[in-house]
């Protein structure tokens, strides 16, 4: 195996930004051991892994956040753009540096479990920190999409982010005033939502998260929705009623989403829509 050229980390990061990433960071592969169970660590996917390169970007624009239909933001999902950057970096690491590079597949290994947590990777690469709602927020850009490359290259690693974006100052004020935050109020676990938590000074503490219910919202018209309606249809003995299910709006929309692939995977953004740290809330005309 060749020696890593001087300045390789800097060169790789510049390539990532040039390719369209808004941020890029590098995590130590062994740092995952303290957080992820065996089977979901970099070395489990690529034996001999030393670092994980993470890129973030392709975040929704201001107009997407204020659109009056939730379906607009889901169909404007741009995850594939950042995945393309990840694939290019993997190619560059192998062709220019001569080290193994594994693009982390954005899909799931089984059921809802990912191969490797991209959010954990982003956090360990110093690109952001976990918000009360769940997604990793970058201090400058807020909510982003992530892509990661596991490599045997001994790149220079970045430290974790020192100051988290969540809770935002206005959320701390709201907590003092009302005992809740925008994300907890819009999707409360104790009232049919997904989230529970609290603020302890400048620290957000998430106490509960119903991933299964979140799945019904994020993937309403996706694999889960398809399976649920399919089951209902198979159990329906009346031919005309079966037709209503199969030809109906839910099934039709679900099939559009599935066949348009990842441009339509993420379908719920409500905890991020109301989050002051997620998209800046810059005044637009």
């Amino acid at each position, binding site marked *: 195996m060749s020696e890593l050229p001087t300045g390789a980390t800097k060169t790789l990061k510049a390539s990532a930004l040039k390719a369209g990433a808004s941020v890029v960071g590098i995590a130590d592969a062994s740092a995952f051991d303290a957080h992820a169970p065996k*089977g979901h660590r970099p070395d489990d996917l690529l034996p001999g892994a030393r670092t994980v390169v993470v890129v973030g970007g392709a975040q929704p624009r201001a107009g997407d956040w204020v659109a*009056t239909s939730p379906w607009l933001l889901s169909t404007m999902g741009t995850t594939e753009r950042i995945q393309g950057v990840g694939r290019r970096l993997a190619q560059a690491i192998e062709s220019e540096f001569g080290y193994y590079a594994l693009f982390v597949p954005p899909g799931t290994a089984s059921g*809802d479990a990912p191969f490797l947590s991209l959010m954990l990777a982003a956090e360990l690469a110093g690109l952001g920190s976990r918000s009360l709602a769940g997604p990793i927020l970058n201090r400058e850009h807020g909510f982003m999409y992530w892509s990661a490359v596991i490599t045997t290259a001994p790149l220079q690693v970045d430290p974790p982010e020192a100051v988290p974006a969540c809770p935002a100052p206005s959320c701390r004020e709201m907590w003092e005033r009302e005992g809740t935050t925008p994300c907890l109020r819009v999707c409360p676990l104790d009232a049919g939502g997904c989230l529970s938590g609290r603020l302890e000074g400048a620290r957000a503490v998430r106490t509960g998260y119903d*991933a299964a219910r979140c799945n*019904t919202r994020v993937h*309403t018209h996706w694999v889960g929705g398809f399976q*649920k309606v399919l089951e209902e249809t198979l159990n329906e003995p009346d031919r005309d009623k079966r037709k209503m299910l199969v030809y109906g709006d839910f099934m039709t929309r679900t099939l559009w989403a599935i066949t348009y692939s990842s441009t339509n995977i993420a*379908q719920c953004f409500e905890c991020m829509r109301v989050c002051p740290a997620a998209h800046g809330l810059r005044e637009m005309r």
Partner: protein
Amino acid sequence: MTSFFRLDPEVYARHKDEVLRLSNSFQTIDARGCSDREIAERLGLDERTVTEIRVVAERDVYPLDEWERAIEFKRKACTEWSAAALKRPDLKEP
């Protein structure tokens, strides 16, 4: 030649709640979700069986009605945000 893996519905019914509780499906502050292998070791099952129980249970835990509620939730939350962010109370649902 191996046959297609089919999960026994009785095994599923017996273990689904415990598998979901130990997995990442419902996350709490005091415990990280276990991998399928870790759950299998705890429950004395093989990993493939746990994976199958978890995957089926993830979809089974909420009825189809919850998907319909998801649509209503997003429509309402989105409209309310648009009305507030754009300072257009007329956009808010009556």
